[in-house]
């Protein structure tokens, strides 16, 4: 059986790399996107088990990205973990309206991310 796929969307390449290494180490496949627009373009109907997305990104921010994502029937029920900073309360309510329930506060350590992911899906 193929591994479960997680899409990581963040404008920081280094963050994407670290998260990818950690997730791959935990037994997931990873798909990367550098912003909302880029990510949407890469989502062409293939199975995605989880999306990890930053909020603040160029071209298309995380909230809009999730809103767009949820419009697609094949990704309607895909769980989303949103990366946020402590001060992002305002963002949080917007994200909740868009259907984001899981938040991980930046900065985080790789194993914190793994732990958060495993609350939603298991490899």
């Amino acid at each position, binding site marked *: 059986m193929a591994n479960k796929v997680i899409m990581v969307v963040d404008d920081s390449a280094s963050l994407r790399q670290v998260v990818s290494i950690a997730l791959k180490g935990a037994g997931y496949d990873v798909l990367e996107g550098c912003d909302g627009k880029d990510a949407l373009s890469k989502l062409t109907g293939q199975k995605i088990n989880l999306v990890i997305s930053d909020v603040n990104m160029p071209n298309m921010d995380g909230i809009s990205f999730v809103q767009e994502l949820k419009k697609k029937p094949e990704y309607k*029920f895909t*769980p989303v973990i949103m990366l946020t900073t402590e001060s992002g309360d305002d963002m949080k309510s917007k994200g909740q309206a868009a259907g984001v*329930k*899981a*938040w991980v506060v930046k900065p985080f350590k790789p194993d914190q991310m793994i732990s958060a992911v*495993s*609350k939603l899906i298991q490899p």
Partner: protein
Amino acid sequence: MSMEEALQTFFAESHELLQEMEDRLLAIPALAEEDRSETINAIFRAAHTIKGSAGLFGLDGIVEFTHVLESVLDKVRAGQLMMDADMVSLFLDCKDHVARLVELQESGATLSTDDQGKGNELVARLSVYLTDTPQAAVAPAGEASHPAPAHPTDSLALESLGGNVLDNDNWHISIEFGTDVLRNGMDPLSIFRYLGTMGHIVRVVSFFDRLPALSELDPESCYMSYVLNFHSEADKATIESAFEFVQEDCKINILPPHSRVADFVEAIKNLKQDDLRIGEMLVKSGTLTQRELDAVLAYQTAQEQGDSASQDPHKRPLGEMVVQAGIVQPEVVEAALHKQIQQKKAKSRQQQSIRVDAEKLDTLINLIGELVIAGAGVNIVAHRSGQTDMLEAASTLSRLVEEVRDSALNLRMVQIGETFNRFQRVVHDVAKDLGKEIELEITGGDTELDKTVVEKIGDPLTHLVRNSIDHGIEPADIRAARGKPAQGKVRLNAYHDSGSIIIEVQDDGGGLNRDKILAKAIEKGLVEPGIDLPDSEVYQLIFEAGFSTADKVSNISGRGVGMDVVRRNIEALRGNIEIDSQYMAGTTIRIRLPLTLAIIDGFQVKVGNAHYVIPLDMVIECVDLPEENINDGHDSNYFSLRGEVLPYMRLRESFEVTGETGKRESVVIVKYGNTRAGLVVDALLGEFQTVIKPLGKLFERLRGIGGSTILGTGEVALILDIPGLVQQMIRKSHHETSRASVKE
């Protein structure tokens, strides 16, 4: 038949039943299915009987375990479960465990952790058969899948589901998922799987009560609720974190295992930090998580606001709310409350007092003693100089010195309550030794006296209290015959009385037997036969060395050593003992002690060229010696004070003072206890602050002199021992009256 004997019967009976259980179990495999019912019944009955009897004896461990065993056996008996070879061996293990429990009870040993682990393991294995999940039940699947009627957040439902017996070591997690969880991409199963990584999910019970009719069912919505029995070593916050992403939409209740309650209570007890609020304590001990606390606090605030609108001032305490919400056990809240009260007490005590090395205080008192003497010297010089401003300055100085002295002495004052409270234990132990029932009543615990006195009064008091219980309080049968309650009463009391402190040891026992004491005293040659002594003096005889009227020597009292030591100890503290006793009704021993041992207000008198000091609080008045007594020589020892006859003594004669006599003689009337007497002196010099200096070893046994002091002039004055002198006078007058009566 005693309970003990009944218990022995229970042990024997249990062993028989267990043996029978084993025999029957071993016979099962050989029996055909349809022939087993009688055998299974017998096995069930054995477990049932043991459980029932154990309950009678309050052997809860056995009851709890056999209850589980019995429940499984009941299912077997009802045909819901098939007894296979696995089950037989499980039951055999259970039988062995019950036997072990009974043996432990028999030998009075406690359950080892091994035994406990074994028990838990067996309970876990048994409870597999108790769950209503289809794979365990033999009954048709349809029957088992009927939803349980209760709501999962209802704590009652939890109780009825598993029963506390099974769940003792497990967390109770009830979770009601929000309708949107699935839509949000959350999968309950994932969360349970995650939970599984930190422990073992023992049971999952699903609730479908929110499930709507099929026509209204939205396939994207979640209608599920679950109750989990979760075995884990993780703490509450960690377990809660598994629900991190769903907790906003879900109702989650996490109740720690019962077996953890003791740990939580312990953790609360060991909290070092002061000033914690109940909620903070519960969070720190791991009982409550921060999120739960915040939620409850928010709810409380909301309610308060609602209440103020409805004019209801009643605010529900946090502890009550968390218990009612079923997230914390009441025992834990109780421990937290207790801790809080303790903290408050400790804090207020801390604020009120500073600890000071007793040695520093002693040094201070000594210095003040020197200051008092130096002050007196200044006074004398000022008087001699005759300068008004000098005199004024000196008088201000001495007033201040007096105040400093009082407050310094006050520093050494401690309450006697703590000393009194120690006697609860003494009374308990002695009463137990003697098989008597005694109640100790303590009053006047807040009475203050000098620290040195408090330290030294303990031993004599112990002796008196023991004596009261042993000799004073009668055995229960005699008390009943005398119409007294079976429980004897010993009372400790303290109060201030004119410059002394009185400590009373009172009992409602048989009282002193005057005739018996007198007879004994005559036998010992302490009293001449035929002399009529007042009661108080007869009672004083019990303080003579080697005096005991006890018919039976117990290891507590009756050897006649002790009471004389008691008196010596008290006298060393410049105190004395009086006894009030009523035959059949009780005895009161009254210890009179000076408030302090260091500095007193004295009254200075002069005889010849010698100065003497009388403790001021014992001086009542001073009068001129009546004319008829002036030249009465040495025959009479009485004079009339406004018609009252008082004994008196001339200090000049008693102390054989030489030197010129004064122009006139004065009488200082002193009072000690209830006795008044006169001391004839040459001159009255007035009040004087007296720093007491002990007499040397050589003069320790001197009667009539209690100590010495240094005057402002540097001269030494002797402090009169008024109790000693008063007793001497009374004894002398008694001797004379009795001699007179013999002559007649």
